[in-house]
């Protein structure tokens, strides 16, 4: 890996849900074009990290610099318009919108996004399902749609929260393929995962999160050697 410029720099990020603190000083860096995972057991703070970056979790302090701009303090709509695409853990497919409406919902925020035709090539299952209500799709298709709709917008940084959760192995494999294509196309990706075996097939680097902090960092090459340590940290 050559040292590219940092695309996203998170420093001392703390966040709260009311009185209860979910993040206690997250520190990590994602370089342009990198695929980085946040690994960690349930309740570690992975989702909260993504929600803080996009500004859905507003009670936050510290620093999140995206493409040279500080985003802590901005509202989520302003952050999205800087070019961050977010795919939530619960997928967030809208039941009252058709598949096509779901796909076209996120506004284009920058030039250079994928066209609908390119998106259909990447997700053939979504082709010809345009008029189906979004939530009538299978779980795997909904996950594809949740990823697909942020590819159009021109966002260069994608935050994907457990895109393989609860899906059948063939679909997990298909999502792995998609992520490799997206990496080739130059997207920067922060991937939240619990399944480090899957993570190892797509990512360049990994951060292990526990108790709202980063507790370890490793490159994909190190993952095999440090498997036992990793398993302990992930509690698997």
């Amino acid at each position, binding site marked *: 890996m050559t040292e590219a410029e940092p695309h996203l720099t998170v420093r001392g990020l703390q966040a709260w849900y009311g009185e209860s603190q979910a993040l206690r000083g997250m520190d990590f860096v994602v370089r342009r074009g990198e695929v980085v995972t946040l690994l960690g057991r349930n309740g570690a703070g992975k989702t909260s990290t993504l929600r803080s970056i996009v500004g*859905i979790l507003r009670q936050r302090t510290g620093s999140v610099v995206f493409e040279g701009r500080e985003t802590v303090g901005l509202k*989520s*709509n302003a952050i*999205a318009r800087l070019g961050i695409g*977010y795919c*939530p853990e619960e997928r967030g497919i*809208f039941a009252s919108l058709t598949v096509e409406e779901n796909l076209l919902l*996120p*506004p284009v925020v920058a030039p250079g996004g994928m066209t609908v035709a390119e998106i259909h090539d990447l997700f053939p299952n979504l082709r010809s399902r345009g008029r189906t209500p979004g939530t009538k799709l299978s779980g795997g298709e909904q996950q594809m749609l949740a990823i697909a709709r942020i590819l159009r*917008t021109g966002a260069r940084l994608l935050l994907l929260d457990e895109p393989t959760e609860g899906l059948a192995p063939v679909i997990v494999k298909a999502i792995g393929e998609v992520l490799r294509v997206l990496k080739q196309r130059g997207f920067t990706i922060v991937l939240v995962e619990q399944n480090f075996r899957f993570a190892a097939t797509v990512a360049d680097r990994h951060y292990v999160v526990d108790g709202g902090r980063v507790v370890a960092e490793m490159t994909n090459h190190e993952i095999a050697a440090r498997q036992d340590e990793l398993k302990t940290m992930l509690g698997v």
Partner: protein
Amino acid sequence: MFTIEILGKTYNSAAVFGQLLIGLINGSFYAMLSLGVAVIFGMLRIANFAHGAQYMLGAFVAWALLNLPELFPGSGLPSIGYWPSLILAPVIVGVVGMATERIFIRRVYDLDHAYGFLLTIGLAMMVEGLLHVRFGSAGLPYGTPKEFQGTFNLGFMFLPYYRAWVIVASIIICFGTWLLIERTRLGAYLRAATENPELVQAFGIDVPRMLMLTYALGVALAGLAGVMAAPIYQVSPQMGQNLIIIVFAVVVIGGMGSILGSIVSGFLLGLIEGLTKVVYPPGSTTVIFVFMALILLARPQGLMGRT
């Protein structure tokens, strides 16, 4: 002239059709008003009990625009008639609605529904009370626009042009609003934000501003209905009070927040009310509420509400 049999009794056809037509006209107003209430409830989760007062404001603004020279003598202001008012008054009332949302309503989004209810009903009483002080309760006249003076002879009854226009315009307005919400990109934002406002905002949409504009749209619809009502009912500070309770019954029957439900049940209940006036006149003021009770028992989510 012929007779019609309903529930074993015979009625004069002119009476039946006459009441049905009145029902259709009332239903046009129920539909336009409950449509706005449904749009606002669907998006903001606010039961807008100020809707009747906003309807009344529409009529008052139209009346004031018509009487500018008398209201401001010596100012040289022109009298603005029905057609420009049909656009101007809803815009003015919509802007007032926008300010209302900014100053008051957005403060209660995160509170219990009761606060939204109390706030909007309080605002309505304030506006109605102030206008009552200035104008009293006697209705102010608003003439029928000259293009619509005259009647159709339908054979069994006379239908004034203006009332025919109200029915047609109301259908167009309802259908147009339905199209806007169900078939456009803007409507997709609105529907999505109803389900998950946080996520829609995280996609880059300024949801608070969209809520403000949605409230303004709903309020402008009330204002538009008010302008259309001015030549039929008199313009008075109480004209919305009588309607707002019926409108909420219509919205509940249609399914809280269902656009299509409120349109359909608006017209339907107007007709049912009209028919009741023929069959059992004393029941005509309560039939809508009886119907509401029955619907709530049989189908609590309303005719077209989602469960």
